[in-house]
């Protein structure tokens, strides 16, 4: 226990980095997901194909592989950014594919008549998506998106493998000094669990609040 308490500042620092990465990459993933789903359900065949390839590619590669490729590969082609920034971008692109798929299932759950009615009124495809289809789709997928948020939080720990000192890396460093893996990693695990519990609480509230009578 003292192994944990003696190193609270390191843990705290790691947790802050984890939270920053989680928040930034979730915002990025949400933006990516919205763009990809708009392309994927849209009327332009080329954009649909691009979005489909994007989703299939990113979902079929392990995040760790993508992180390693980005951290070691991008500097080779002259793209240099901080480790944390690189990890945030990679996680955002990766989780964006999952958010796009969650949103697409939401769009499919909305009756085709909603989009037809919007277009029959003269709204463009983009307007009908923005004002009619997506707001309803989003309400039906609050829970799956909450799950993606939790998975994303856990996935930020993979950034430890490419040198970002977030919570897992911080715990690992403390363990190298103290050699007490059980209290140290249980402590780190509890911190992740607390973040996940908060996310679950928020999605539950959101789901009730946004429920639409049908």
């Amino acid at each position, binding site marked *: 226990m003292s192994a944990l308490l003696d190193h609270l500042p390191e843990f705290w620092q790691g947790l802050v980095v984890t939270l920053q990465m989680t928040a930034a990459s979730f915002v990025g993933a949400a933006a990516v997901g919205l763009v990809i789903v708009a392309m994927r359900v849209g009327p332009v065949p080329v954009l649909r194909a691009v979005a489909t390839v994007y989703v299939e590619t990113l979902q079929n590669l392990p995040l760790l592989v993508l992180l390693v490729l980005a951290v070691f590969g991008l500097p080779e082609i002259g793209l240099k950014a901080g480790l944390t920034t690189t990890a945030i971008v990679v996680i955002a692109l990766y989780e964006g594919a999952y958010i796009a798929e969650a949103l697409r299932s939401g769009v499919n759950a909305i009756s085709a008549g909603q989009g037809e009615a919007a277009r029959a*009124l003269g709204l463009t495809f983009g307007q009908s998506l923005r004002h009619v289809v997506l707001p309803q789709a989003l309400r039906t997928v609050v829970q799956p998106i909450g799950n993606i948020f939790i998975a994303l939080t856990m996935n930020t720990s993979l950034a430890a493998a490419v040198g970002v000192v977030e919570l897992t890396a911080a715990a690992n460093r403390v363990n190298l000094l103290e050699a007490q893996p059980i209290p140290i990693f249980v402590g780190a695990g509890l911190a992740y669990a607390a973040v996940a519990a908060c996310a679950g609480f928020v999605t539950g509230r959101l789901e009730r609040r946004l429920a639409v009578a049908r």
Partner: protein
Amino acid sequence: MIRVRGLNKWFGEHHVLHDVDLDVARGEVVVVIGPSGSGKSTLCRCLNRLEAADSGEILVDGVPVPAEGRALARLRADVGMVFQNFNLFQHKTVLENVMLAPTKVRGVSRAEAERTAHELLARVGIAEQAGKQPARLSGGQQQRAAIARALAMRPKVMLFDEPTSALDPEMVGEVLDVMTGLAADGMTMVVVTHEMGFARRAADRVVFMDGGRIVETGEPNAFFDSPRTDRARDFLAKVLTH
């Protein structure tokens, strides 16, 4: 106002519309009747290109209906449509449903859109439902809200795709009353329906479709009292005896 020439439409192997010609004059009320699967709904949906025709031409107010994009959206803004299943936006109140298109498409201010919306909701007799979500309304009220939503764009022509087919019988009348009022006010209307009483009362012309073709067309009293084709006579005998 609407001119259709040589319209053909296939769903896969199925030839749904067969060389359809149709003219609708300004202020005219054309009621399209016929058995299920005769292509009347598809014809209606082709007029604002919710369905793309495979061949033929459609002109609305002298302009060919554009294939896609903003030009098509502009045309649709001038062509109101009322659906069988109402299709009110479920996440918005009735008032917001009516206000959405005028503010987003026409650029009308919110205050003016709201004033117009209240007027239209009063006109269709559901002023007191403005703040409710659509799912809280009866079917008849929802369909009247949908009519108000279409009217808010001040359309040149209104399309009705079986507007009373999803309603409980007791609610059919209130929707038909609103439509009869619109017709009396001079609105150009194309109405696909099974309501023969409405057709006889409100139509300037009845179009009878069967098997994807327009089989007979004529003034309502003449059509209902003495149809010229066997197919129309047969159809009327079946629907009017019940």
